[in-house]
């Protein structure tokens, strides 16, 4: 890396957000540079300041009255932090483009994709306007979209996440920028599509020698795509270096912690180390608790079929039916963890909701020989008590206006006739069992981290003393370190309480770590099932093979 090649240099950059009386230091004195053709990754957990620093490169906080920055971001000898609006607008999109995380929400919902693409050309390109459409159709073809004309005429809600991310890539490439900033571009996508998008990005940026600044929390994605890496933790850069050397010989404890706390094959038989344990040097390898697997089925699902009708109105004749699950049968044995993997739309969550009695269905679901009937379910408290569900997003599944303790007490008193004080002491017991102390009893969910919230959600499920816990992508929204904590907690709870768990996830490595048996689903059907290791280590089905291959 010689100096002439450097196109972007960040020097002693800091950024803080002031809120009412406090100020939060989001980025604290970071410096790095990016050279032509380089693919630089910035990794870190949520709140590490990685996204904030990258948006600052485009000076996107210039209108925010609460953001205060210092230091320099140098591009073409110019400090972007104090460039005036017309000039920076010549750089945004034109020289430095952005591909953002959620393709669904990154597009203006009421403008056709074609028009949004051509806006980019209108702003930055000298081509005559009547050639714009042709150019855009070429770009759409370049990002391997099969029907460019249709995409051109579509609104964002008519396209899938993968298609939209390709449109965003096409948009970023349309002006031949020197740098593309990718803010977790594949996080919201299915694994197989993630793979395709990464390959596409690599190919296209190689052709033009474009530099890539790739933000991600996913270390394996980064290893695959980038040539060097910066690890950020609490607003600071803790480690930097070339890839894959940095990850194979991590110097800083935090990098080591990130790498080791993932549920990998190496960790299969160990309690997962957590980030704090590794940083403080207290981690000691210890074996996972052994599960008591029963043979008797606790829950049987027989030819479960669930279809969704698009609503019909008085005057309309047409009706569309979407088949979410198609003739699915399996059984859940006492004490086991049954994993269900599949991509979005494969019907995993539908199964969970049918079992929890939230949907009406065709077929049979029986819990200990007793049919799960969604219509009488409201009355059938016992069944509801025995099957509980942990949802994906701990941020939206807690009532923000209700303190944690009372929300537990409410549930306990719903199912058991006990006095308030008894219920309170029980609630505190359950908080202890998920690793939270009694100070949490009087707190609102507002001040809690994602991991703490998910613990509360699990405690809420446990206080009905369930037999079966359904985890619907329960760790997918969490950072690696928190994920490890929750997985360890589940492991321990299975051991202590003899829980049976239905674990739904799109993340193969998590499912491999936690489950005893696994079902692979595609388009509403089970394509493969069996012992976790036999299925995932030597997949028989082509689709399973693809899923497993997509995980590095």
């Amino acid at each position, binding site marked *: 890396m010689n100096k002439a090649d450097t196109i972007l240099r960040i020097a002693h950059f800091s950024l803080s957000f002031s809120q009412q009386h406090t100020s939060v230091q989001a980025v604290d004195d970071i410096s790095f540079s990016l050279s032509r053709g380089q693919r630089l990754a910035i990794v870190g957990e949520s709140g590490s300041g990685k996204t904030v620093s990258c948006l600052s490169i485009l000076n996107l906080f210039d*209108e925010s*009255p609460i953001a205060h920055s210092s230091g320099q971001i140098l591009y073409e000898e110019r400090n972007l932090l104090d460039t005036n609006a017309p000039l920076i607008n010549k750089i945004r999109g034109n020289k430095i483009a952005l591909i953002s995380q959620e393709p669904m929400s990154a597009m203006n919902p009421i403008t056709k994709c074609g028009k949004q693409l051509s806006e980019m050309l209108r702003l930055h390109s000298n081509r005559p306007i009547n050639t714009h459409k042709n150019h855009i159709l070429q770009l759409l073809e370049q990002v391997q979209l099969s029907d460019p004309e249709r995409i051109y005429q579509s609104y964002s809600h008519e396209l899938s996440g993968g298609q939209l991310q390709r449109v965003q890539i096409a948009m970023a490439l349309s002006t031949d920028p020197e740098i593309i900033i990718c803010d977790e571009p594949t996080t919201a996508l299915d694994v197989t599509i993630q793979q395709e998008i990464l390959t596409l990005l690599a190919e296209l940026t190689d052709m033009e020698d474009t530099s890539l600044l790739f933000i991600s929390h996913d270390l394996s994605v980064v290893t695959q795509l980038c040539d060097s890496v910066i690890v950020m933790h609490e607003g600071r850069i803790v480690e930097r270096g070339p890839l894959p050397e940095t990850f194979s010989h991590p110097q800083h404890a935090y990098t080591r912690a990130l790498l080791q706390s993932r549920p990998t094959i190496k960790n299969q038989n160990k309690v997962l180390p957590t980030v704090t344990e590794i940083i403080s040097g207290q981690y000691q390898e210890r074996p996972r608790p052994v599960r008591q697997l029963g043979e008797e089925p606790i829950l049987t699902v027989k030819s479960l079929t669930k279809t969704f009708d698009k609503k019909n109105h008085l005057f309309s004749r047409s009706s569309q039916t979407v088949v979410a699950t198609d003739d699915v049968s399996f059984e859940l044995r006492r004490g086991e963890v049954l994993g269900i993997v599949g991509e979005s739309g494969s019907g995993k969550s539908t199964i969970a909701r049918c079992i929890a009695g939230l949907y009406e269905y065709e077929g049979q679901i029986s819990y200990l020989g007793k049919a799960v009937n969604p219509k009488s379910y409201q009355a059938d408290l016992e069944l509801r008590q025995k099957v509980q569900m942990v949802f994906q997003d701990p941020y939206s599944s807690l009532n923000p206006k209700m303190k944690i303790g009372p929300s537990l007490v409410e549930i306990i008193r719903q199912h058991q006739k006990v006095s308030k004080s008894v219920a309170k002491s029980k609630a505190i017991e359950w908080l202890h069992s998920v690793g939270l102390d009694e100070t949490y009893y009087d707190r609102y969910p507002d001040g809690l981290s994602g991991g703490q919230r998910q613990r509360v959600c699990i405690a809420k499920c446990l206080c009905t003393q369930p037999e079966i816990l359904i985890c619907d992508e329960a760790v997918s929204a969490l950072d690696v370190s928190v994920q490890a904590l929750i997985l360890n907690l589940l492991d321990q709870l299975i051991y202590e309480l003899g829980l049976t768990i239905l674990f739904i996830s799109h993340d193969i490595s998590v499912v491999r770590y936690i489950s005893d048996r696994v079902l692979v689903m595609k388009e509403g059907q089970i394509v493969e099932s069996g012992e976790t290791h036999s299925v995932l280590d030597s997949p028989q089905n082509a689709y399973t093979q693809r899923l497993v291959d997509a995980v590095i």
Partner: protein
Amino acid sequence: MGRYLLRRIALLIPTLIAVLIFTFVLHTYMPGDEIMERLDLEGKSVSFDRAQYSQSYLELQSQLGLGGPAFYFGLQPSHQPSDARDIIPASYRQRLLQLNGQVKNWSKIMAYHEALQSALMAHEKDPSQARLYRQLNNLERINTIEELRSLSVDLPEEAAELKNVIGQLEPSNAMILPSLRWHGLDNRFYHWVGRLFSADGRVSLVDGVPVADKIGAALRWTLSLSLISLILAIVLSMMIALWQSWSTRSWAVRITDGFMYAIYALPLFWLATLMIVFFTTDHYGSWTNVFPSIGIKPWMLGDSAIANLGVYAKQLILPVFCLLLANMSYLTRQLRTDLKRQREQPYVTSVRAKGVSRWRLIYHHLLPNALVPYITIVTGAIPRALVGSVVIEEIFNLPGVGKLMLQSIHQSDWPVSISIIILVGIVTIFSYILADVLYMIFYPQIAQSLEES
């Protein structure tokens, strides 16, 4: 889109029927007896020959279609008659029905009614029986069995038959089930609707002027008042809200916000009254007296339309300004909030990263997205503009639709008031259709869900 619109327009029919039924109910329960008023006008009063009065009353009643049951069908307690409209006056009928509520036997009540009436008619012209006649007259006002019985003790021998009939009235505690009765076409609602659309319903009861002419003349004022102020309010609110989101001078934005809030909170009638005092009188010096005094100059038929408009314009400035302030502050605050909300949407980051200017971001990306609630409010204001300006019309003494409505209600001029209600109903439906069309134009997602529904 076409099919959807057809369906929406087809909805006009059930809606209109509902509006008709609603106004019919209101009309029926309005105090006053139209037939009695008409007979009074003809110089026939109740004190006039009893038999003849009731005959002419009943004749007029059937002529106007005001007799018979209320609707095509009815659900009533089975002991109550479906129709007692031939018993007059209404207050006496009401008392008979109350008595029937105690006796629960309509034929006995009818026997009592006939005996009482024949006795009344027999002794009406006889001065020697004046005391008996007063006694009988008094019986007409009784609505409980106990009282009726105690009074009947005093009746002389001449009314022996009546005494006998009253003796047979006995309170009953029988359980009465409701029964559903089919009345057929000969009902008041049916005749009422018929009258509404006949020549009778097209002329004002007060001065015989065709209803269409009256409403037309009033519409000329209301439309110029409401439409001008609404259009100006839309334009101004857009300009102000856009400027507010564009401006970087936060103090100026905050002052405008506060100003809009203050106007929004001001009572309209108070502002209007102040303006009248200030601008149309010499109270604060002659220099403030720049507008003609309130009220209207008639439309000069001889003069050209432009000359007339000139006269109008000066008179409309103050009321239009008042309505404008009210509408504008509301619309501005709404659009400003929605623009702010759009500014926080995740797509804004990616749009800004494209390098669009501040103005382009606001005008091309935020504004179209923020228009959904705005469209809802603006189209919702259209039916209100028709009669909602009644306060302003009253204060500035403009003969608009709101004022006409109020007047016709005061004067029991039902052809006018009911026509206005129906007009407002139709305009409301069409403004909803307009809102849907605008959504379809601006919002592909909404269009899709509307098509599918």
